[in-house]
């Protein structure tokens, strides 16, 4: 796939934009004999499945968080009764919850910034290296991108093993450092730093490859002109490259925020299925409330709060995607 492919939509004459919603029947050249019903018939199976497996649980998530729902309601011994905002006030009044929120934000922000900066640096580097180095890097990136998360987590657990992990062994090779036996997961911050590294390692390839595709569409003439006008490398990047890449950067950043706020298996498997208190992120905390403490209602309330926290980011992402969608 090259730049030529990605420009195809522009060549297609654009009469196919959605009619403005206010106009009931936009005159259209190609209206099928099936009329209005046909597209909806095509959509029906998809919408039905989504309503069942996504719509219903989503509604249930909301109602559940306003109910009392524990073990006995699960087995049907007691009907679930509405308790208003009780679950929320309990959750919001809990100091532990706020500690988890702060931890999740720090973790997600760190992962996103780290991912975007490293991704951008590697993408820029890829433009400057020889062909064979580029091929090598691409192979390594795609291989790490394709690794199943569970496998990657298992491998990182091994890399950072306290006694036999290669990371400690390599660190100890440095003069004056003895890290053999150091347990990275003895403390929350250190353990989460390792998990962050794992998340970033898995996320960087997608960012690099998407940004590389974007970089090939930055017109050479613009960079050339900026350079002739006396801009240094940083100036060219800051005032020419970055503004052109902005839509991609916005899209990647919002996606990363959404993904990194949803990190679960990495923490869960890394801590052997029982993350300690200082490893809890919003996702594991919600899971813990629901399936360990058996308070499904409170777990749902936490999950719902997480979704609400993400809404703003999702809105930005959607705007960006819709802008892209309108090109076609």
């Amino acid at each position, binding site marked *: *796939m*090259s730049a030529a*492919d*990605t420009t195809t939509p522009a060549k297609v004459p654009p009469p196919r934009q959605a009619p403005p919603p206010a106009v009931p029947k936009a005159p*259209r050249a190609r*209206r099928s004999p099936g009329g209005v019903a046909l597209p*909806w018939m*095509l*959509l029906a199976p*998809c919408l039905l499945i*989504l309503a069942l*497996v*996504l719509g219903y*649980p989503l509604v249930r*998530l909301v109602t559940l968080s306003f109910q009392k729902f524990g073990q006995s309601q*699960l087995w049907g011994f007691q009907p679930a009764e509405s308790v208003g905002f009780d679950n929320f006030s309990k959750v919001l009044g809990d100091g532990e919850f706020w500690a988890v929120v702060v931890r999740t934000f720090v973790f997600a922000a760190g992962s996103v910034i780290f991912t975007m900066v490293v991704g951008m640096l*590697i993408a820029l580097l*890829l*433009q*400057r*290296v*020889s*062909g064979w*180095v*580029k091929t090598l890097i691409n192979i390594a990136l*795609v*291989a*790490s*991108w*394709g690794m*199943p998360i569970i496998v990657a987590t*298992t*491998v990182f657990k091994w*890399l950072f*093993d306290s006694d*036999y992990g290669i990371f400690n*062994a390599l660190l100890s090779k440095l003069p004056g450092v003895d890290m*053999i036996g150091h347990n990275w997961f003895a403390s929350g911050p250190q353990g989460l730093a390792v998990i962050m590294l794992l998340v970033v*390692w898995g996320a*960087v390839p997608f960012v690099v*490859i*998407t940004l590389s*595709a974007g970089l*090939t569409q930055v017109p*050479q003439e613009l960079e050339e002109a900026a350079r002739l006008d006396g801009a240094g490398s940083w100036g060219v990047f800051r005032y020419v490259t970055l503004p052109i890449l902005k839509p991609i950067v916005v*899209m990647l950043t919002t996606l990363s925020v959404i993904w990194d706020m*949803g990190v*679960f298996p990495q923490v*869960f498997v890394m801590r*052997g*299925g029982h993350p300690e208190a200082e490893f809890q992120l919003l996702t594991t905390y919600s899971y813990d409330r629901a399936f360990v403490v058996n308070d*499904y209602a409170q777990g*749902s309330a936490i*999950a719902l709060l997480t*979704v609400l926290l993400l809404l703003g980011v*999702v809105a930005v*992402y959607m705007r960006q995607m*819709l*802008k892209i969608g309108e*090109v076609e």
Partner: protein
Amino acid sequence: MSAVATPGRTSSPQREGSGPSKARKSKAGWNLLGLLVFVTAGFPVYWMLNTAFKPAKDAIDPDPSLLPTGLTLDNFRRALDIADFWGPVGRSLIVSLAVVVIGVAVGLLAALAISRFAFRGRKIVIVGILAVQMVPLVAMIIPVFLLLNDLDQYDKLSGLIITYLTFILPFTVWTLRGFIVNIPRELEEAAMVDGCSRTGAFVRVVFPLLAPGMVATSVYGFIQAWNEYIYALMLMSQKNQTATVWLGNFTTKHGTEYAPMMAGSTMMAVPIVVLFLIVQRKMAAGLTAGAVKG
């Protein structure tokens, strides 16, 4: 990706401004840095393979050698002994294939509707399909668990298949739509002018052009379903576990036997990474098509 397809496009020596020798020197510097990136990014994968194939006693050497110390399949045998491997793999295969077949069939219809028809509510459907992709799946575990419990689908493969459609379907619709809009509408129209019916035009003209995109989407969806962990863990009991849960449990129960664990990881990862290598270019292009012109 285009980055691979046009090596060295942006690095013509004259851009460096001064003579070729300086350009070559700076190029060598970049290459060195590039190799460093290669080694760092590739190391976890290398170390997994290295540990999987080395004798188990070398894996617990306090001064591990970075190079392979020997070639043995003992770790693989041990990994297969520890717990049933093929059962979980079979279940993962059934679930992933079923999800992909249903997802692509249903998704293709929906993708056609939103890319080839103008109708009221089209935009709302598009926004909806984009939006549901953003719902963090982890947040949905509790209600999905309760739903399947009510439907008597807990601990059944069919329940897991339905659940996986939540994330495969929106993704499939969106990706296939991306492939369809890249097929010029004029081709279809030409076929219809020449006497094809609308369905005929689709089957004879659009479908062959769409086939590679559909294959890529299917493979990608397969990988996603194969890799899923949380729902598989929550919705299936120990005796019906899938491959990812098999590996996850491996971690918790035999935490110290790292060499067989890496052998298990290798068996899980290699087929997936190979599949991924095959479809990755096509998918990345589909995901970002037109993004710059936003």
